[in-house]
């Protein structure tokens, strides 16, 4: 069916308004373009794991363009499939399928999840990313621990928003023994960093 040209702007306006929930919160959902990277160390060399799938939903009770510092109303649930994470070299090329298998096994083939419990706006300047501190529950390999980390909200084209941040944690916090691959004295470090760019877009009605 063709839509008469005069109605098109009205429809777009309607869509924009329906994206705004009744309670004033704006609903976002995950979009392609995300990146999740796990950075780790070993006594031989550092290692990297990367995935391009970050699913989930975000609800913001504020307009990122107008928000002021302080606690802000927000909800988020985030999911990263363990099997989507692949070991890579520094240049982004695939590293080793066996390492992928080991890591997926360490994660018990379960997704990494994050549930936001509190969001505090630290700094908000017009035209710049909004700096926030996020608190929530991180679930890795089936074990859940509280975590907090700094992040940024950057508005993009097409009503998209990118949530970027880095969360530091330890494997042992989630019951994972740092692997000693190859049995040749190589030991991976306990500390890991989760670096992410989560792209979300306004939900359509």
């Amino acid at each position, binding site marked *: 069916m063709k839509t008469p040209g005069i109605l098109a702007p009205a429809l777009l306006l309607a869509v924009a308004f329906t994206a705004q929930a009744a309670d004033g919160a704006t609903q976002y959902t*995950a*979009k*392609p*373009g995300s990146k999740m990277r796990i950075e780790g160390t070993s006594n031989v060399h550092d290692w990297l794991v990367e995935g*391009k*799938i*970050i*699913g*989930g939903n975000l609800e913001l009770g504020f307009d990122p363009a107008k928000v002021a510092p302080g606690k802000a109303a927000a909800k988020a649930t985030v*999911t990263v*499939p363990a*099997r*989507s994470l*692949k070991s890579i070299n520094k240049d982004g090329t*695939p590293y080793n*399928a*066996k390492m992928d*298998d*080991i890591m*997926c*096994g*360490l994660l*018990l*083939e379960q997704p990494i999840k994050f549930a936001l419990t509190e969001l505090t706006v630290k700094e908000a300047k017009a035209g710049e990313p909004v700096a926030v501190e996020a608190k929530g529950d991180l679930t890795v390999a089936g074990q859940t621990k509280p975590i907090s980390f700094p992040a940024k909200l950057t508005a993009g084209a097409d009503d998209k928003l990118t949530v970027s941040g880095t969360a530091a944690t330890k494997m042992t916090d989630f019951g994972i023994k740092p*692997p*000693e*691959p*190859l*049995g*040749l004295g190589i030991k991976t470090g306990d500390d890991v960093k989760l670096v992410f760019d989560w792209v979300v877009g306004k939900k359509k009605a």
Partner: protein
Amino acid sequence: MTPPEDLSRRDFLKGGSLATVMGMLGGVEVIAQPEPAQPEPPAAPTTQVKCAVVGCGVWGRELVSTLSRIPTARVAALCDKYPAFLKRASRLAPDAKPIEDYKQVLADKEIKAVIVATPSHQHKTVALEALQAGKHVYCEAPMAHTLEDAKAIALAARNSPRLHFQVGLQYRSDPQRPFVLNFIRSGATGKTVMARSQWHKKQSWRFTAPDPEREKEVNWRLDPQLSPGLVGELGIHQIDCATWFLGARPMAVSGLGSVMLWNDGRTVPDTIQALFEFPDGVRYQQACTLANSFDSDYEAFYGSDAALLIRGSKAWMFKEADAPALGWEVYAKKETFYKETGIALMLGASKQQALTENAVQETAKPTALQHALTNFLRNANDLGVAAEDFIASFGEDDPKALLEHLAAVPRQPGAGYREGFEATVLALKANEAITTGRRVELKPEWFELA
């Protein structure tokens, strides 16, 4: 009794790994570092891929046998319209469902991957329908017996980015090959001057059958209308390796073939020679015969500083006296080769298998075929779960993003539709040159996938 043909293609693809090279001296063994022993990863994913083998002839059964040794393979169905073949294959995979009609296999939603091992002229039908049915496809080489069929398969594979398509050119999956290739690419062999390969085995290529109709059907390789010839059925693997290693496509091919031994009324040659003309004057010569088994099979690449000899998953470098020192070769393992002086008389074992303890150890290594099928299943699984995860997270509103995501999924080495198509065109044109006795200039448009 297992017919002698049971050993043919299998031996071709793994027999060369046995260390019995004759008539050469002082080879520096060029062998990839063995992968260190891996600890058992905790709860490592061992997702099995449900697959079916369509075509349970000699080679199809070799595929079933190999799949039975791969932990990620679950052979759920075996398919052949000839009950005797189906019965033999079922002994290798007793849990697999025997099915006579391939359409039933394709209709089974649980089966994710199909391995097409029918006679070459039947590949197109099964492969195209398998892709249409949403199955990952491993198509044996050659892809088809005509250029048109091969192109149709390649185009269908290209247009199915959500499915993994791999061609049975297993050398592409053998980790030893790229390792050896580095010695050419790095310049260690000097200026490449020529290449040569051979496949020698004494066998008839003729099968017995209970009735004339079946006899005609099972001996399709001896039907000049259907057979890609020795160069198409066996030489294609070495042709693919030659073009890969030489890094170029030949410009012309000529060849000759004759029935030298098996004068049973056949016209398909049992002995052939083909000569491929590559750029810069480099020529690659291939010889295949069913009349003599001397020296089995190998590929050799000759450079101004050294020659590389490859037998299955082993390789040696033979340096010229005036070649610059590489340094590492001082410490490398060296094997002294000798001329064959006798035949080991051991029932049921090839003369090569009988010679050394090393030879026995070599046979325990994963074969190129095992690597190829393992990689196929891995790629099929990874592509499948990548699509699942993407759709579960983002839906299907953005097909372009989905395809970009799938294109970035890491793949384990294997011959794709492009490599398979190129090799098939070369093999079929070489067979044309052999059967007509004419030099065939290889037109670039034959290789295009419009």
